[in-house]
């Protein structure tokens, strides 16, 4: 009985929406003919962009280096520019993360956007004030992506070292004296934890410090998920359980990238978490 009522209600709402759309948006006085109005804009933009491309093609022709040879490795070896953000991440993450898991998370994250952000506000306009969190998250990821590409393209030289534009690009940087340590080594010496393994699971023999790093790693996600759940109830309710968890996992993973970069640069930490199979 209830479901029938709801469906009638939805139908009514839909009917009124269609009526509204028909009278407001699609009235003949609001529309113009596509030919010539839109076709003209398209033609001009195509001619204009073709002119720019022709200009670039003549001024800066496609490069051709020496023939491919497995014997000589260029230094540095750079991927195409649109993948240089991922290659730059190799400085801070192992290849399985930088090259496979993180890009996959980006793709998955992009795909789920419309199913996470179901609020109808701001559709069809540049409206940022009513969707601050969505616009912030997207812009943050985008800025990170472009920043890493810019670094990879213009600030990385021999041996993937940092080169300013005014540095001699043919001069090797002297090897840096910085030694990177894993978080568990830091914790072990700082807290005087025992070095003997607590457990034995095949190749994996975790020490107390190693288990502590597991705790820290998981706590990042657990605390990150719990705080908005407890203290930003309206934020949580807006998404619901499933959407909230998927969205926050992706959001925290995205935020984890600059966090790990920060820990590497500021505290010389190589890995947060070390296991025989993978290191993060």
């Amino acid at each position, binding site marked *: 009985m209830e479901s029938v009522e709801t469906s009638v209600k939805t139908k009514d709402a839909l009917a009124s929406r269609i009526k509204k759309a028909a009278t*407001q*948006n699609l009235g*003949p006085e*609001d*529309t*113009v*003919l*596509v*030919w*010539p*109005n*839109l*076709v003209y*804009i*398209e033609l001009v*933009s*195509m001619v204009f*962009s073709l002119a720019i*491309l022709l200009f*670039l*093609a*003549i001024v*800066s*022709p*496609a490069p*051709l*280096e020496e*023939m*491919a*040879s497995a014997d*000589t490795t260029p230094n540095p*070896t*750079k991927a*195409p520019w*649109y*993948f240089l953000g*991922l290659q730059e991440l190799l400085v801070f993450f192992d*290849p*399985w993360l930088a*090259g*496979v898991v993180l890009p996959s998370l980006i793709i998955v994250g*992009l*795909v789920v*956007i*419309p*199913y996470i*952000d*179901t*609020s*109808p506000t701001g*559709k*069809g*306009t*540049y*409206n*940022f004030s009513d969707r601050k969190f969505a616009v912030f998250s*997207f812009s943050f990821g*985008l800025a990170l992506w472009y920043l890493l590409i810019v670094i990879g393209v213009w600030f990385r030289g021999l041996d993937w070292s940092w080169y300013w534009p005014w540095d001699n690009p043919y001069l090797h940087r002297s090897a840096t004296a910085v030694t990177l340590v894993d978080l568990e080594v830091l914790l072990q010496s700082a807290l005087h934890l025992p070095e003997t393994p607590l457990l034995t699971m095949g190749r994996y023999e975790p020490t107390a410090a190693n288990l502590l790093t597991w705790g820290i790693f998981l706590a990042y996600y657990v605390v990150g998920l719990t705080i908005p759940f407890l203290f930003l109830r309206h934020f949580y309710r807006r998404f619901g359980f499933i959407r909230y968890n998927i969205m926050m996992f992706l959001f925290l993973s995205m935020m984890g990238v600059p966090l790990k970069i920060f820990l590497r640069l500021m505290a010389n930490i190589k890995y947060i978490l070390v296991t025989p*199979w*993978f290191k993060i």
Partner: protein
Amino acid sequence: MKKTFDLIYGFITQTQLYKSVFRHGYPSTDANRALIMFSNVILHLHPVRIRRGALKIKFTWCLGGLTFFFFILLAVTGVFLMFYYVPDTRRAYQNIKDLGTVIYFGTLFRSLHRWAAHAMVLSVWLHMTRVFMTGSYKPPREFNWVVGVILLVCTLLLSWTGYLLPWDQLALWAVTVGSKMAEASPLLGNAGPFGAEIGMTVENDVAFALLGGTMVGQSTLLRFYVLHCLALPLVATLFMAVHFWRIRKDGFSGPL
């Protein structure tokens, strides 16, 4: 003079041949402007009428349309390049050299192909940013956003596979960087987490499938050539058809 011209024009447009090709008059009247949209397959991607607000350049920045234009441009220049290219490691590099030395407009077409590829990657990114910022992925357009993400992946794969074809040092090592990452895939790569545990070796993992061997070589070049010139453009075209169809059905999300 004008009389003669009108007479000739009138005669031509009355012939069976002309009328069999063009089913509309010159689009100077509203009726003919509507008819041209119905009877021309390319123009049929558009509706006959569009809301005034959707015309605003500052809303779409023409980015989706330009991406499609770059794709067409890449197809045209790509077909030209295919006439002069053999995906053989002993010949490919010389073929590209020939484009720059002995083939008329060879450099121009190759450079245009390369710049259009850069432009397409960038315009896809900017188009997605625009669609996000205007909230155009919201219902009923959720699935079209997903199709758009698939097209983004197609674009990047097309660019990346094309990168290998000149068979120069830039090409070989850029693709080598990528294949190292494939080797490190969790479960599917021999150097990735749990890869060795489930039996991945250099000769059966995902990098092997991608390269057709354990290193970038002849099989890789052929694979990338087929993917670049045939398989990926077909997939992209299929999803583009869905993408445009959905836009046509749902209309622009643009302002009034």
